[in-house]
């Protein structure tokens, strides 16, 4: 009895296996797991733009939005893996452990986790964008255009990704204007229009005439528009929300990577990778520059953009000093990826302490 049961189980498993294999060969189905709503005009919105690019390339896609990073993530992932999806993109850091856990159970399904570092199984890849390159461009514009020499910066959470962005921004701004100061307000949220507005107002009250942001809503650029100061869009081109205030935006452009990876799955050439692409590979895109930016500065920005893309310029080139004056990167050297990945100290010129 037991033997018969095992045999039928094995045969049905083999049948299922051949079924999935033949499905892979025919058409590939990709799934996306989002942390927020697709209409946030920030992080999730841009991932969904990437998903649509995959659809346009002729592949079927599914998505689940608003998946909390709690115990629920694992269930959603398992259900997607179970329902015939061949590659699953998990687009928030908090999905890291569930992604690796479910990947172990489904060795035939490929998993792509954004902004994480764990690749515990051969079917897990990670990917992230070098947003700090874009922030170097914003810093250059801000440093050149500020009159009060105070630049406001609304930050989300004190993690390396955000600290790196603040540093890159400040270093670039100092290069064109050694007198600038970057003032940080921590909103402790990725998406909360109310809190973000409060933070932006506080910075404007402290004399900031340009506001940068590392949170996802369009609230900050709208506050800047009302207050008559400049701002930069985050994740998507936010120009239409504040046409006067927005000087440019750093766009997250996931489409090419997503199409590439789904194609690789379809061709059977997918392999584990740790991708960290920047302006050069088109994962980070600078939106059109506003006409408020003088033409000589526009030319300078375009050149910096080209140099960052070609690798001629690195956003973290020494000498770089921390707030206390200690040397972080020596003259002529550039910060390596390991240092960038774990960066938890401010550079000189940033005001305040990292909340700990």
């Amino acid at each position, binding site marked *: 009895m037991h033997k018969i049961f095992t045999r039928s189980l094995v045969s049905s498993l083999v049948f299922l296996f051949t079924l999935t294999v033949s499905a892979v060969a025919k058409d590939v189905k990709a799934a996306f797991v989002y942390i927020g709503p697709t209409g946030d005009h920030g992080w999730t919105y841009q991932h969904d733009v990437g998903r649509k690019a995959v659809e346009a390339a002729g592949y079927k896609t599914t998505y689940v939005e608003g998946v909390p990073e709690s115990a629920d993530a694992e269930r959603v992932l398992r259900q997607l893996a179970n329902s015939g999806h061949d590659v699953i993109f998990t687009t928030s850091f908090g999905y890291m452990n569930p992604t690796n856990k479910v990947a172990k159970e489904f060795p035939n399904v490929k998993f792509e986790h954004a902004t994480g570092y764990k690749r515990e199984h051969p079917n897990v890849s990670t990917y992230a964008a070098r947003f700090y390159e874009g922030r170097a461009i914003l810093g250059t514009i801000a440093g050149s255009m500020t009159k009060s020499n105070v630049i406001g910066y609304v930050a989300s*959470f004190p993690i390396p990704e955000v600290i790196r962005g603040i540093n890159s921004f400040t270093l670039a701004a100092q290069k064109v204007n050694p007198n600038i100061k970057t003032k940080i307000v921590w909103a402790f949220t990725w998406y909360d229009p109310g809190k973000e507005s409060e933070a932006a107002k506080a910075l404007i009250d402290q004399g900031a005439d340009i506001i940068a942001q590392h949170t996802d809503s369009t609230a900050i650029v709208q506050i800047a528009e009302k207050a008559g100061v400049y701002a930069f869009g985050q994740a998507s081109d936010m120009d239409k929300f504040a046409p006067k205030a927005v000087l440019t935006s750093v766009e997250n452009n996931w489409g090419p990577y997503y199409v590439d990876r789904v194609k690789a799955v379809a061709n059977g050439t997918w392999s584990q990778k740790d991708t960290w692409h920047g302006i050069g590979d088109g994962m980070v895109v600078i939106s059109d520059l506003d006409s408020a930016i003088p033409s000589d500065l526009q030319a300078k920005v375009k050149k910096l953009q080209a140099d960052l893309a070609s690798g001629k310029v690195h956003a973290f080139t020494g000498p770089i000093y921390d707030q206390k004056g200690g040397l972080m990167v020596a003259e002529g050297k550039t910060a390596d990826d390991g240092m960038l*990945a774990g960066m938890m100290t401010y550079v000189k010129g940033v005001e305040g302490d990292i909340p700990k």
Partner: protein
Amino acid sequence: MLKRLPQKNLECLWEEEKLIKIVKRDQPSRAIFFLTPVLAIFLTLFAGGLIFYILGFKPFEALKFFFIVPIADMYGFSELLLKATPLCLIAIGLSFCFKSNNWNIGAEGQLTFGAIVSGGVALLFYNQEGFYILPIVILAGAIGGMLYASIPAILKTYFNTNEILVSLMLVYVSKLILDYLVVGPWSNPEGFNFPETRQFSDSAKLPILFEGLRIHAGIFLALAAVVVSWFVFYKTYLGFQMKVSGFSLKTAKYAGYKGKKMIILVFLISGACAGLAGVGEITGPIGQLHREVSPDYGFTAIIVAFLGRLHPIGIIFASLIVAITYLGAETAQIFMQIPKYTGQVFQGMILFFLLASDYLLFFKIKFTGLKK
């Protein structure tokens, strides 16, 4: 039939037609009391189907993906129980408060603080194994929840503050404390400064009941809470005191009940249950502390408590029904591309229809026919 002169037009029209009559009940009906939740669920299904139809989805297919497909197999059913466990546990705790006229809205904060305390203890035992670890971790969570619930209780009894506001505001405080800990002192030293702690050792995790499923021993905590609460509500003097205080605080005072003691006690029970729910999440499916321990279980449990009529058995059913709206929303989005947020619409509709049909508790509809 037309004994009275028409006073005001609308009412008079109604009187003349008089096919249906709405009469105030002498006493709230007990049968209706337990039937209205069922009615509310049916109305929700109907309204939900209507919404799907208007949105251009096939209503029956959509409802099938919402309420049947997610629990059609063993795995799905186990996920339902996993999701319902914290809801049931918290709602049981809340029913102690709500029955006795104490409006504890801050179960989410008590859950978070319970998770913080038990997570802290679990991290103390990092990389250690031993049978004694889990009981200590669980106890720590219950104590954490109780401590946190005692704040609104003490402020209410000794300083006459409003427990609704205090308990609600403390939710945000607890989340900020958790943020601070996982970003700073408790963050994983090998974790590239990402906001999460180390993974707990196996001895600090609740045992899994079935290989391959996620359902864990935390469900026994919830079932124990159900049994204990039933006993307390209906078999003890404390339960009677709670009931009297719930009906009328003045009566309770005349009867000589020590109100302050009871208020603190029900808050402590409620906090302990919420704290245990937090323990169940972090030592069950999550296995570490990070910023998002609970997707607002503490708030959703308020709906569960009322849908279950503050009755232990009712709460079991209510927690299963609310849990399925979460699972169904995911399935419906995966298979039919229905926006996942419809799950929240369903939760809102259940509560709305329940409150609306409570009208029937105090009024009855009489079909008088057309006899003259």
